């Protein structure tokens, strides 16, 4: 269960990193301000504050999701310990996997050549832009992961846990001292690096590919009344809300990674990520409805039932990877029966997320306010149901 909190923490940090990246590096402000004699320190501080104000709810929402995990921690730890005892006798690689420091250090070591390879093809500052959020996620994951304990923590350990929980805030305040200097050195120069990246991609790009978007080939297999709306959603989603689609794929890869194990809680962890993926995609659907360009609303026929059905199809297509990859990993590694909870929880979450997304989308700008808490509660309920069903 501790690993669920780790994954959710990584998810929150990923969302925040992507958000900071989109505002600070790729935002419209850079295009406008790069020509003006701005004070980069003030600009960067304002953009970071803007991100904090826009995303403050992520942390309490993660807390709500983790509440059942926190209250059931002791029981879960006991169960996990029992599951470990049931595993076949000690094998060298299993021993290595369980040694926390060695294991995590080993993973970082293993990543180094892979990180060096793409960095060689990019100038160093570009590599920093591209891989910094990933390294941040890795660092947070590494610092959050702790070896499982079999007994309740003593009070001193509990206060240490609080200190660790509050450490990101302290780190943020401490980092704030470095922001002005870093911003003055890097913000305006960053524009040249971004344009370099874009110029290289533009040189590689086939102009015929420019108009294509992820999954647009599916449209030709849909009934005629749905095609226009489905293509509209696929294009709008891929161009304006791509982080939700790529986020679902990241969760899919993560679900496959955690499902590819013989540990007893592997299927549950894969199911948790499949459920998260479904609700992430559902949130993307709410935003699609909220920021649909007004000229499209005027130009296209009223969406009605075909429009809703087309959006449901698109959301299911985007949300399938975490469910399918997570379940397939469990199926191939452990067996078909073990993958049933992943199929059931992921499928149910996808159905609920799509329905909820379509309903909340009718509220346009306020849709996410309704969607987020309901999705969090339903997600937790689904996971609880999976846990109960699995025991």
């Amino acid at each position, binding site marked *: 269960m501790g690993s669920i909190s780790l994954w959710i923490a990584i998810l929150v940090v990923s969302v925040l990193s992507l958000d900071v990246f989109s505002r600070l590096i790729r935002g*419209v402000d850079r*295009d*406008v*301000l*790069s*020509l*003006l*004699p*701005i*004070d*980069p320190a003030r600009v960067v501080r304002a953009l970071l504050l803007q991100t904090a104000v826009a995303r403050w709810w992520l942390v309490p929402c993660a807390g709500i999701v983790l509440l059942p995990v926190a209250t059931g921690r002791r029981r879960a730890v006991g169960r996990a310990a029992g599951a470990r005892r049931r595993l076949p006798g000690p094998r060298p690689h299993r021993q290595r996997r369980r040694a926390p420091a060695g294991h995590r250090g080993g993973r970082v070591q293993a990543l180094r050549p892979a990180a060096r390879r793409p960095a060689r093809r990019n100038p160093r500052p570009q590599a920093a832009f591209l891989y910094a959020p990933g390294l941040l996620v890795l660092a947070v994951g590494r610092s959050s992961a702790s070896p499982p304990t079999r007994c309740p923590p003593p009070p001193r350990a509990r206060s240490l846990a609080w200190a660790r929980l509050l450490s990101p805030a302290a780190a943020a305040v401490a980092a704030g001292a470095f922001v002005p200097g870093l911003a*003055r050195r890097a913000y*305006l*120069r960053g*524009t*040249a*690096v971004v*344009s*370099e990246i874009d*110029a*290289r991609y533009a*040189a590689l790009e086939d102009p015929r590919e420019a108009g294509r978007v992820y999954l647009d080939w599916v449209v030709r297999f849909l009934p005629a009344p749905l095609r226009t709306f489905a293509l509209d959603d696929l294009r709008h989603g891929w161009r304006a809300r791509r982080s939700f689609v790529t986020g679902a794929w990241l969760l899919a890869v993560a679900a496959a990674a955690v499902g590819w194990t013989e540990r007893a809680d592997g299927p549950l962890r894969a199911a948790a990520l499949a459920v998260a993926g479904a609700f992430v995609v559902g949130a993307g659907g709410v935003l699609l409805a909220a920021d649909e360009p007004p000229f499209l609303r005027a130009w296209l026929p009223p969406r009605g039932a075909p429009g809703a059905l087309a959006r449901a199809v698109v959301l299911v297509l985007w949300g399938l990877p975490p469910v399918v990859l997570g379940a397939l990993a469990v199926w191939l590694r452990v067996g078909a029966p073990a993958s049933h909870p992943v199929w059931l929880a992921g499928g149910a979450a996808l159905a609920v997320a799509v329905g909820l997304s379509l309903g909340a989308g009718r509220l346009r700008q306020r849709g996410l306010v309704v969607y987020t808490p309901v999705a969090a509660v339903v997600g937790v309920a689904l996971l609880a149901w999976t846990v109960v069903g699995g025991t």
Partner: protein
Amino acid sequence: MTESATEAIALQGVRKTYGRVVAVEHVDLRVQAGSFVGLIGHNGAGKSTCLKMLMGLVHPTEGAVRIDGVDVNADPVAARRRLGAVPEEPSLYEWLSAREFLEFVAAVRGEGDVAGALEVAGLGADAERPIREYSQGMRRRTALAAAMLGKPPVLVLDEALNGLDPPAAARIKELLRAHVDDGGTVLLSTHVVETVERAADRVVLLAHGRVIGDERTADLGAGGLERLFVERLQREPPPAQ
């Protein structure tokens, strides 16, 4: 005063490559303060890359870029204080009106006559409409007005007169001329030969990333620039990449 002290714009041995593609090949361009220079070249000649390097939007692979004696890459903020720039595709805050946008730019620059800028750009009647509703020409005029706010000594304009109707283009040319007469410097990139012939004091020809000509417009006869450009272009075959 030394010669370099009066150099408003200096590209020194500048080279820019994107992987194997050479966009600009050892360009040397020096523009004295109080001049109006036209940069002429075919599509892909390297004009925009040169101007982007002056605006600090692209770093040169080799060489140095200075605005009013300030290295653009070493001290980007100081260089931008001396520079008003209009890129080929200007970026503006779409949800602001022209007046709000110009007020914002004036606040950043610490000075600027917003009402006057709106008037000279011919945006007075549309000043309160959001920029997202503007035509291409109006957007360009807004960007020009923003570039000229606070009277920076150097103006760098990339195809800035494209999309303007003839009266608006004539008005902008008058404004640029007045800026030069006041001691300012203008570098205008365009592929329209007539614009440079009529407005600039000097013309620099660029082809395949290299300077292939640098002439005073007063020394060219009517239609002379076009003929010169074609002749020089024929003498300079594209380099093998």
